């Protein structure tokens, strides 16, 4: 496997100015403007292999989008090195641009007042795609995403889900080897989210496209990515398998108890922290190390327990715990 993306000690610093509220503040800022610096990304390093799907996870303002913008050459890095397919994205060489695509959930690339088809035709010429190749790719994408009916409607009239599907087509017409997806499911309903997700998965399996994806939604990451990079305040705090993340960071496990008759909450609390409580059903959070002992103690007790099960903590909670810790 060869390396598709290589990032070393990447830093992006933004300059901004503060202004006191009100007219006087505005007036002052005309004469005494102080510059402040904020590091959106501070010294991050990682590598992505060709064909991998990597989830980029973090709260708002963590630096995910900034990183993707640097990887695609939109932003110039303050320091550090980036190589995508062996080239520096900030050089903005056409040779590289022909080999990656980017979709930004909050930024339209298609012309709003025209049907998506018109934008596709324009993109075709941007990339100088041969007619047959273009037509084949387009048909395939249109089939996979089931958007036949929407292609001749002005983009601004489409629903968010339909629009996002068209944006994806616009980013994939030139068969990129690397795809950057910035919040591709943002604002979509559950069904539309799942459609997009399924498509990304299928596309990656078929084309072996390297994909870096940011999302707020854990479901996207869980469904699509074996590997996650978690970023907060511009720093990477975890880079590895999603499954390892749970065993490494989740110090607790869950015991699910179902009973034939209601057990008082206070009784269950003697065994651990009660997470959910519905009388005959409850989940108890217990330390990983003691989970076996506590489970057998529960079974041995004279409580009217019908069944117990042991589960890992939900990934969402694990990640929330990580963010809380940092």
């Amino acid at each position, binding site marked *: 496997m060869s390396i598709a993306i290589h990032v070393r000690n990447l830093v992006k610093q*933004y300059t901004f100015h503060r202004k006191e509220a009100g007219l006087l503040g505005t007036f002052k800022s005309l004469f005494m403007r102080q510059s402040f610096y904020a590091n959106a990304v501070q010294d991050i390093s990682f590598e992505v292999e060709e064909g991998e799907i990597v989830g980029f996870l973090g709260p708002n303002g963590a630096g995910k*989008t900034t990183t993707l*913008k640097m990887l*695609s*050459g*939109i*932003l*110039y890095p303050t320091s550090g090195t980036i190589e995508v397919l062996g080239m520096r994205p900030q050089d*903005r060489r*056409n040779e590289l*641009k*022909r080999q*990656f*695509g*980017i979709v*930004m*959930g*909050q*930024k339209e*690339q298609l*012309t709003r*007042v*025209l049907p998506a088809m*018109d*934008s596709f*035709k*324009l*993109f*075709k*010429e*941007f*990339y*100088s795609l041969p007619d047959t190749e273009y037509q084949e790719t387009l048909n395939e994408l249109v089939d996979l995403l089931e958007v036949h009916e929407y292609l001749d409607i002005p983009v601004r009239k489409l629903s968010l889900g339909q629009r996002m599907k068209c944006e994806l087509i616009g980013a994939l017409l030139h068969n990129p080897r690397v795809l950057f997806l*910035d919040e591709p499911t943002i604002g979509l309903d559950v069904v539309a989210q799942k459609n997009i997700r399924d498509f990304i998965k299928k596309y990656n399996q078929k084309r072996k496209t390297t994909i870096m994806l940011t999302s707020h939604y854990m479901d996207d990451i869980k469904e699509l990515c074996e590997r996650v990079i978690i970023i907060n305040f511009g720093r990477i705090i975890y880079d590895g398998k999603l499954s390892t993340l749970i065993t490494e960071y989740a110090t607790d496990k869950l015991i699910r108890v179902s009973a034939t008759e209601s057990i008082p909450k206070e009784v269950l609390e003697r065994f651990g922290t009660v997470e959910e409580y519905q009388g005959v059903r409850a989940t108890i959070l217990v330390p990983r190390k003691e989970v076996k002992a506590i489970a057998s103690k529960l079974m041995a007790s004279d409580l009217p327990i019908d069944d117990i099960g042991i589960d890992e903590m939900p990934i969402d909670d694990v990640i929330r715990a990580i963010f809380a810790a940092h």
Partner: protein
Amino acid sequence: MRQQLRQAAAIINSAWQRNLAYRFTVVTYRLGEIIEIVVLVLMWTAIYAAGTTTIKGFSLNEMITYVLIGNVFSAAVRNFIPGYVSRDIEQGRLSMFLVRPISYMKFVFINELGRSFLATLLSVLTQIGIVLLFLDRVVINNDPGQLLLILIMVFLAVIIELLLGFLIGTIAFWTDETDGLHTTIERVKRFFSGGYFPLALLPAALATVSFYLPFQYSFYAPAMLYLGKLSFWEGVTGLLVQLAWIALLSVIVSIVWKMGLKRYEAAGS
């Protein structure tokens, strides 16, 4: 080459389609132009009626011809690139071009030629219409050599205005508030182009300065050539000044563009 033409055709096609939505705007703009020019003609008529027969060598008919013919040239070279480029920078739409294998400047220029084709054509036709309206007052020039010279000068002025427009647009990399600046620059440009009154009315020093600036070739110089107040060879010298400006502006634009891109913050998402 064929690929380039296809690209250009696609961009122009797209520009036309988008602009079909703004037909009414195109027509309403013309109305303002007509009013402005009629007012100028009336103003000069009133000034001459006060008793003078010539002002700095201009007879009334020459002055009216200057206003009318100059505005034909000015309509032909004008573009809306500054607003277009600064909006793309401010709203982050530029990002879309940075990730695709096409030069943004090339796109903007072709797009502008396509976009403004209809508007410019209509504008020039309107201006010619006004010229015809005042035909009895217009000085006629049918010297083919001079007319060819004027044509070349106007063509070079279109290129200068494209480069200047792009340069002005890139100010948006450094500040978010570009509207006021654009308007001010527009006014200064119009003044130095001779759009308010012939530059011959200015003190000699200013007139000399303006000869070496690129602006007067969009209005004053071709109009004066038309009136025969600039000699053929003065016109040719003007073309050389224009060529020098095109070279200089190309260099400046590419430097400023590179500097700006390093500052670009891709706002909006």
